[in-house]
């Protein structure tokens, strides 16, 4: 099974989840003031933004590209993109951290795709997915309680489910591409993706009693 060949990596992922997920939830708070300062082009705001999200973004990008020089370039590109597009961001309703992580992830996925000739296929979708106007959801969705529940749900996923989540989130593969990579029927992959996301989603929904 393909899933057993990467089980070590997934176990490690689970081990760091508890600590990291709490850090993410905490960092996403109180971004409104920082966003306002970025929009006002305060010179110190970029330093504060990096202090808050630089390491997180770098860790994410490095996880995707596994190359420190490329990761540095991509993180720099991420922060410049945020700086240049922050005027479209609503600091009253926006979630700055999720936006930065999405931009960072998309820069890294775009880089991976450029390496293996997949660039043109999804570049437009990635660009659409990081539109700052999309990141206007209630950041109570990023509470610590929800983070804990997500961690619990993730640990309960089976190896195939964790594998497809990994491929989607950190390699940018569509379900069709996952099927090719894993040499599994598309229907099977879709089932793994659907059940994995359903489990994670339900934990988050239950956390807020929705």
């Amino acid at each position, binding site marked *: 099974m393909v899933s057993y060949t990467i089980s070590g990596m997934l176990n490690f992922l689970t081990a760091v989840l508890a600590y990291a*997920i709490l850090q993410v939830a905490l*960092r996403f708070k109180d971004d409104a003031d920082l966003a306002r300062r970025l929009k006002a082009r305060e010179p110190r705001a970029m330093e504060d933004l*990096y202090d808050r999200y*630089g390491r997180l973004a770098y*860790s994410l990008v490095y996880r995707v590209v596994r190359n420190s020089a490329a990761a540095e370039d991509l993180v720099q590109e991420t922060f410049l993109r945020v700086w240049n597009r922050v005027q479209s961001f609503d600091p009253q309703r926006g979630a700055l951290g999720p936006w930065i*992580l*999405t931009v960072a992830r998309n820069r890294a996925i775009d880089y991976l795709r450029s390496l293996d000739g997949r660039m043109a296929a999804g570049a437009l*979708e990635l660009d659409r997915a990081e539109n700052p106007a999309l990141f206007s959801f209630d950041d109570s969705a990023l509470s610590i309680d929800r983070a804990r529940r997500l961690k619990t749900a993730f640990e309960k996923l089976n190896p195939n489910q964790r594998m497809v989540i990994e491929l*989607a989130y950190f390699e940018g593969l569509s379900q069709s591409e996952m099927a090719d990579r894993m040499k599994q029927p598309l229907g099977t992959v879709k089932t793994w993706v659907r059940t994995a996301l359903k489990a994670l989603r339900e934990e988050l929904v239950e956390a807020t009693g929705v």
Partner: protein
Amino acid sequence: MNCGDLKDAYELYALGLAEGEEQAEIARHLARGCEACRNGVDQAMALNSLLLGVSEDVKPRARLKRRIVASVRGKHRSWTWAGILAAACMLIAAVWLGEQERQRTSQLVDTRRALIAVTADRDRLAACLRMLDEPDTMRVGFGKSGPPHGNVFVNGHSGVLLIASNLPKLQPGRMFEMWVIPKGGSPRPAGMFRSNEGGTGFNMMSGPVDVASLGMIAVTVEPSAGSAMPTSQPIFAVPVAGL
């Protein structure tokens, strides 16, 4: 498709990974303001954000922060430096133009002063010549026994003219002052003058004079501002009584 058919694809849609009809249908629902899909995608983005933040913590090199901050400040700085450069150029141009104007003004003032001096000399010389040309002008020579020597011209209508040569060299801040001394009276200032490089100078006290009361014409060296009374011994004194 209805919203229930799409709910399993929200996360992939938010990641830019939804495919085919699912991707197009969610986009259509969002475009027409479908609240259920909007809420579903929002929740999917929250889930995605939490998952994306779960990575092994890797510390970037310190220079990355410097690079990023510098790249943003560089954009500002390019404008800032451009502004500073423009302001500096304007300041230099303003200073240069100001200095040019100051020099032109200074030259103009000097020229006007020189013109006034030349005009005054011309007027004085003209007055001297007129006086010398008048038939009732009287002359008294002096210095036959030694320098300085010259002539004093007296005219009751025009005044007193002194022309002297072999005058001593003046110290800085000093000038010659001519005195008109009435018979039995005190010296009266009659004008300041300098000599040329050859030691020749002249001075004219213009205006009517009472020739009969004149006793003597004398010259002393005085401060440039002039003195109300002589402060040094006369260089020479020319008796003019009895003209």
